[in-house]
């Protein structure tokens, strides 16, 4: 084994340890609910808690809605900017970066001021409307990741030529976008979707201040009041997030020969 390959393996090993050791520690701790023996008691308690199922379902549904909304918003925008308005790219990139700079708590207080029950658009006036507001706020939070992922995907294909080829064959804009562009940036959209999913599942600030029954506030609640259950919950939420991402990948998988570009 050459020196450089040995170095690579050592780096991989270090990365794996860095990632798995805390996870193993958390897992091991979650098994100690009963004194003196390893048991799954903490898991049983968490899984039989009705709030667990309700909050994880709520957050999963919201995450999926956020992904759909994000894709609907970002893909046509990034496509159009790349195709027709390249001069606007720096501006849009700056706007999409704002959620990384502005703390979530500032955003949510802004929402509460603008969309309170006395405003023209009282989105906090009902539970469903607040859900909608929360979903849009998640779209904003995930914007930097989704936009960058999609933009990178678009960079890998020849957007201009593919668009013109589709148009010369008789395709209108919606057909071009849905049947030519979107399938060819599917891998990029998926990676944006994964990040969005991970953000939404664990998000606490917005859900808590908008008083919605999301998984983030539930995690915080358990973590603040119990000893072993939070560890079990952390492991379970890891497993659920990975499973959901896996399912997304399975359902959104493209044709076997699909690649993001031509040679």
């Amino acid at each position, binding site marked *: 084994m050459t020196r450089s390959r040995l170095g690579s393996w050592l780096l991989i090993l270090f990365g794996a340890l860095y990632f798995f050791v805390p996870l193993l520690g958390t897992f091991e701790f979650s098994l100690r609910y009963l004194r003196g023996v390893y048991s799954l008691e903490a898991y049983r308690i968490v899984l039989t808690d009705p709030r667990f199922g309700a909050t994880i379902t709520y957050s999963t549904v919201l995450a999926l809605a956020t992904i759909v909304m994000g894709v609907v918003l970002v893909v046509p925008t990034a496509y159009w900017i790349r195709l027709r308005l390249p001069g606007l790219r720096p501006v849009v990139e700056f706007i999409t970066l704002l959620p990384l700079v502005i703390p979530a708590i500032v955003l949510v207080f802004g929402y509460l001021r603008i969309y309170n029950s006395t405003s023209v658009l009282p989105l906090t006036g009902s539970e469903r409307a607040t859900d909608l507001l929360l979903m849009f706020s998640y779209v904003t939070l995930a914007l930097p990741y989704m936009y960058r992922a999609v933009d990178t995907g678009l960079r890998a294909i*020849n957007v201009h*030529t593919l668009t*013109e080829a589709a148009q*010369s*064959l*008789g395709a209108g804009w919606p057909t071009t976008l849905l049947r*030519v562009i979107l399938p060819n940036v599917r891998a990029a959209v998926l990676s944006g979707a994964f990040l969005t999913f991970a953000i939404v599942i664990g998000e606490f600030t917005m859900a808590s201040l908008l008083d919605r029954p999301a998984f983030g506030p539930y995690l915080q609640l358990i973590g603040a009041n119990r000893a072993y259950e939070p560890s079990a919950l952390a492991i379970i939420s890891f497993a659920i997030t990975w499973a959901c991402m896996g399912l997304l990948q399975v359902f959104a998988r493209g044709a076997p*020969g699909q690649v993001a570009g*031509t040679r």
Partner: protein
Amino acid sequence: MAYLELQGLRKSFGDVVALGGVDLSLARGEFLTLLGPSGCGKTTALRIVAGFETPDEGRVVLEGQDITHVAPSRRDMGMVFQAYSLFPNMTAEQNVEFGLRIRRAPLEGRSKRVTELFDLIGLSDARKRYPHQLSGGMQQRVALARALAIEPRVLLLDEPLSALDARVRVQLREEIRRIQTNLGITTLYVTHDQEEAMAVSDRVVVMSRGHVEQIGSPAEIYGAPDTPFVAEFVGTINWFEAEVLDGGQGEVDYRGTRLRVDAVRGRSQGQRVIVVVRPEVLELERWNGEHRPAGAIAGLVISRSFLGAVTRFKVSVEDRAALIADVASVRAGAFPIGAQVVARFAPDTARVLNLPP
């Protein structure tokens, strides 16, 4: 009546004039090539015909109908692009079928048409392959089939061979011509490769800086260039700046040498002209330095390049100008570098152009 007409097309991008008033017409079934260097406006003209650009002035008329402002998706024009443009997420077959699906063609007719086209391009075995599993030449063949699938009113080809290697380029251009002739489809082709243009076209339009320099058959363009630009751009050329000595006899003076040039007949004595001679009509002979033959230009061989059937010689004349002469390679051994030679051409093989103002 012309099938496709470009009438007074003008187009600028900022301060850059891409087209400065271009008029062209194509007959039904004609293969017309726009030829010129980068930036001459040929691709802009093609893109205006396709509908991807809108002219600042002028019209595009197809079968008597003004289509200048018709959306590209409604023009029924098949296009093959310079860049590989197959949809990466679709197989070759799905790519070819795409336009027919958009038009909601019946399934049976669709399959038949796709089969016919794959037979036509000779890639029936590659129908199920994805673009990344095809070579560049195969991809461009499939792109051609895809453009033909919709039975376009005009086939547009924007330098479709420029990304391919030389052998595939020659092979594919012959196939394009064969298919175009078989189908009788009106074709507008853009290239910067003059050999390609000559090989496939019914007529060639040489363009420079947004203007049409000359329109003619490949033989006319090559053999009888109208302007110094065409003469220089199409093929290799020798040009001598000469003075007419006798417009009746057809004689000019080139650096003290009296040359016979039929094409100067009728010109007035003393007029300065450009005499244009192709390398293949220049004949070289060894010269011992004494008694220079009449009507011959003396010089020294300064370089030679083997090109296969011919060898190309560069001959310096009076240490400044250089003539280029193609000699059959079987005879090339007689002219080593450094040899003194004389170059001659038959009076009827030279073309005469006016000096640019």
